[in-house]
């Protein structure tokens, strides 16, 4: 069996027809991941014992005639900012090099309850801060489509593993584009659901009001299946939504003829010509499918980056305070006093990007600056959300590029944080508004670098998003 190419549906069929057992699949997936991982450095850890135990449970259920769940036997990778009981969870940071959580994230527990097989933990930018996966304390991840290029970030390991076939699906996390941007760079599907749709319990916080857990997959169907499993109210997360979870896979088969698609004009300025070409081709495809395409405007878009970097750094400065050397953080060995412990532990432990954001965030919350920065940013955030509400009064979905440019070379933007921040320019607005958005593969540049198209819909209209994405994927033949 070629574990690197299987879909969830094929795995379910294979298990039920006894083509292979879940244990055989897990063994083969683990061997494949171990062999292939050096090419990308996507996995930080392979959890063979846990994977095989899950697989054995699936096989036992199958032979007892019980339903093993919609993810039965599916080799799944987990971004290393999502905690796993008994499995080291580093967040890509030296500070948590030895942190073994005593509990599972809700999303992880739901995957395993649905028969999923947790294969291992995936590399990422430190505390999910970055757009290239170069901010990991455990080395960068290489893009499977072009090994000298970045996979995007911060869920670079998740996107690379899925693209490479070392995971069938993976969990990523998205704060300002951290699922969609790497998905587009690696040519896979990446979904950021509505804020509150998936419990954040067990997602190590970067910016709590913006953090999402979401699936990465090689096709829309697999992403929809995984989201269906992890979505839903969780009493452990006060911000998780009570709204019932819809049938995302069923929605994929509804027709798109007559759907109104908006192209926000602000999202077509400043993108590279290669990317523009692919997105325009994609839009033509949607027209051919019978969608009505019209131009719309989201006028507050130019303020999004400033707004985002104030809110996310403010929250990050508070969320990252707990890495102080007292507990579960590796403490500086040089520290002699309490003040030393704080300064040295954090000074030695955090990478440059985390330090930059902690300092920015501390500044914008400090006395005398709060109103001018944080409060104003919250007002801008409300205006950006209103832009979307207005647009959705006339259209059913918005379509934009995911990133202005395709995967760039390792090291290319490392010394220029502003250039790096610009790679999220089209994704952070959706995060600020808390609406569902996803990246679907949309061809490749002349150099063969994947391009992703972003689809955004109303709050909790994941069905509409999957419906459009599935038709687009079929029409374009864009499956890996």
């Amino acid at each position, binding site marked *: 069996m070629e574990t690197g190419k299987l879909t969830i549906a094929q795995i379910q069929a294979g298990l039920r027809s006894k083509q292979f057992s879940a244990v055989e699949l897990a063994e083969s997936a683990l061997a494949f991941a171990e062999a292939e991982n050096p090419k990308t450095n996507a996995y930080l850890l392979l959890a063979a014992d846990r994977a095989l135990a899950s697989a054995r449970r699936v096989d036992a259920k199958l032979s007892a005639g019980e339903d093993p769940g919609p993810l039965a036997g599916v080799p799944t990778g987990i971004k290393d900012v999502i*905690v796993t009981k008994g499995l080291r969870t580093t967040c890509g940071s030296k500070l948590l090099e030895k942190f073994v959580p005593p*509990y599972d994230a809700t999303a992880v527990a739901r995957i395993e309850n649905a028969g999923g097989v947790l294969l291992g933990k995936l590399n990422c930018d430190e505390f999910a801060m970055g757009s290239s996966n170069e901010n990991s304390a455990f080395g960068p991840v290489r893009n499977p489509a072009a090994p000298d290029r970045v996979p995007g970030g911060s869920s670079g390991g998740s996107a690379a593993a899925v693209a490479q076939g070392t995971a069938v699906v993976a969990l990523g996390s998205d704060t300002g584009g951290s699922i969609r941007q790497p998905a587009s760079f690696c040519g896979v599907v990446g979904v950021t659901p509505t804020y509150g749709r998936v419990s*954040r319990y067990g997602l190590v916080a970067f910016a*709590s009001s913006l953090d999402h857990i979401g699936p990465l997959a090689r096709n829309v169907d697999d992403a929809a299946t995984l989201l269906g499993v992890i979505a839903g109210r969780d009493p*452990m997360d006060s*911000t998780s939504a009570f709204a019932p979870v819809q049938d995302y896979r069923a929605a994929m088969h509804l027709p798109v003829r007559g759907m109104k698609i908006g192209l926000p004009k602000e999202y077509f300025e400043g993108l590279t010509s290669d990317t523009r070409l692919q997105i325009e081709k994609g839009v033509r495809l949607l027209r051919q499918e019978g969608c009505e395409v019209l131009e719309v405007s989201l006028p507050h878009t130019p303020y999004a980056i400033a707004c985002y970097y104030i809110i996310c750094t403010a929250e990050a400065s*508070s969320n990252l305070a*707990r890495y102080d050397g007292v*507990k579960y953080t590796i403490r500086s060995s040089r520290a002699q006093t309490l003040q030393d412990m704080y300064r040295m532990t954090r000074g030695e432990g955090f990478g440059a990007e985390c330090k930059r954001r902690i300092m920015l965030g501390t500044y914008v919350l400090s006395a005398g600056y709060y109103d001018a920065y944080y409060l104003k940013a919250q007002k801008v955030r409300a205006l950006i959300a209103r832009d979307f509400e207005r647009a959705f009064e006339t259209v059913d979905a918005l379509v934009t590029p995911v990133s202005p440019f395709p995967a760039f070379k390792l090291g290319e933007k490392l010394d220029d944080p502003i250039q790096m921040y610009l790679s999220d320019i089209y994704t952070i607005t959706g995060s600020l508004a808390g609406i569902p958005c996803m990246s679907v593969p949309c061809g490749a540049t002349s150099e063969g670098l994947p391009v992703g198209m972003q689809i955004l819909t109303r709050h909790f209209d994941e069905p509409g998003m999957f419906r459009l994405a599935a038709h687009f994927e079929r029409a374009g033949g864009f499956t890996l």
Partner: protein
Amino acid sequence: MESMADVAAPLATANQIAKYEAVIGLEVHVQLGTKTKIFCACPNQFGDAPNTNVCPVCLGMPGALPVLNRQAVEYAIQAALALNCEVRRKSVFARKNYFYPDLPKGYQISQYDQPLAEHGWVEVEVEGQPPKRIGITRIHMEDDAGKNIHEGFKDSDRYSYVDLNRTGSPLVEIVSEPEMRSSDEAFAYLSELKLALQFAGVSSCDMEKGHLRCDANVSVRPRGQAEFGTKVEIKNLNSFRFLKQAIDFEISRQVGVAESGGKIVQETRLYDPVLGETLGMRSKEEAHDYRYFPEPDLVPLLISDEWLARVKSAMPEMPALRRKRFAADYGLRPYDAAVLTGSRALADFYDEAAKTSGDPRLTANWTIGDLQGLLKGAGKEIEDSPVSAARLGELVAMVANGELTGKLAKDVLAKMFETGESAVSIVEREGLKAISDTGVLEKIAAQVVEANPKQAEQYRSGKTSVIQFFVGQVMKATRGQANPAAATEALKKLLG
């Protein structure tokens, strides 16, 4: 290390102090007596081995999230109502950011610009002065920190330990207006506040156990001046006595500084109960910018009219009202009413006993006097009284009806206290029922008069006080069971 200002100035004299007016406000932290912590399901209890009542949430583990305890909100609402506050329909939690080892998240979850309740008051009374209302600015909810342990371990000279059992314990912070003018008023305010919260049943308010913690803001100004002076915050006031001592010391320190031409520095000072002085903390430690911002992990707390009405209707009678009712309905003296509302348990006990006995004033005497004496002797609180309120009421009723003499009733109460039996069964078993039957008493009276002709003669010749002697003889003959009134009546009739 003390700041320069305190070293120089001498404490003020009484004459100097008299020229100034003190302005005092209190910030009181009260731990709510919920079963579980404010944001997780860990037990809200103490005295267990360190770091045993903990979970990922209260340990501040990466990825863990808070979920607000509904019971804690109800207790906080009750506290707000007990202190006459307006409860806001919407309040918002906020993060208060600072580093300390006993604070595992690196921030406290508190409430900032939108607290749970506002605009309350407490009425206090200082002896010799008319009652006075002290305003309450706000009440907000927050989570408690853990405890740093600096001694008791063999490497305590090099390391401090942290116990996080208390982390996440639910607190309310109650901030008063700066409306107190003396340490006596502060003392009275804190006493009344404690009593109200105990009556509401939201906290034991045990200061020794840290369930009630108090900081005081103190400033002084020349009498007649409208503007406030520079305020100083005093921490570490862990008893009522220390609160009073610290405020008195601080007033005379500040007046001393002002009178010797110095400048009072805005700072935080710690009360040292051994020295009886407040000492300045290094300014570095207090230079906090807490960087408050709304807690993104919690949704705003919305309190519906229905919820508020439900909590309101379940509120017990507050001590001030109860004192008034005891005086008005039961005819108690103000002093007795105050004693009997010293705690909710005592007030409830007395209320029930009084209703059972039908004689509230007599019940008050028996509760305050004999029962409290027995409890004190046994080292027990009213909550653990072996004599229930109903049984005390029955006993008092027997005395009131003349079925049992006061003297014997004392012995019966002692037996009840020992065995937990009812008065009726003790009286019946031991045959202690008072003799009120006139036939029986006249017979005994006749015997007594006959046996003491000399005294009878004295009585008849006008020395009527001798009647006491005869009553004593009747009592002796009946082993104390004679109803004294009925015996006197019979004797008078006989001696003519």
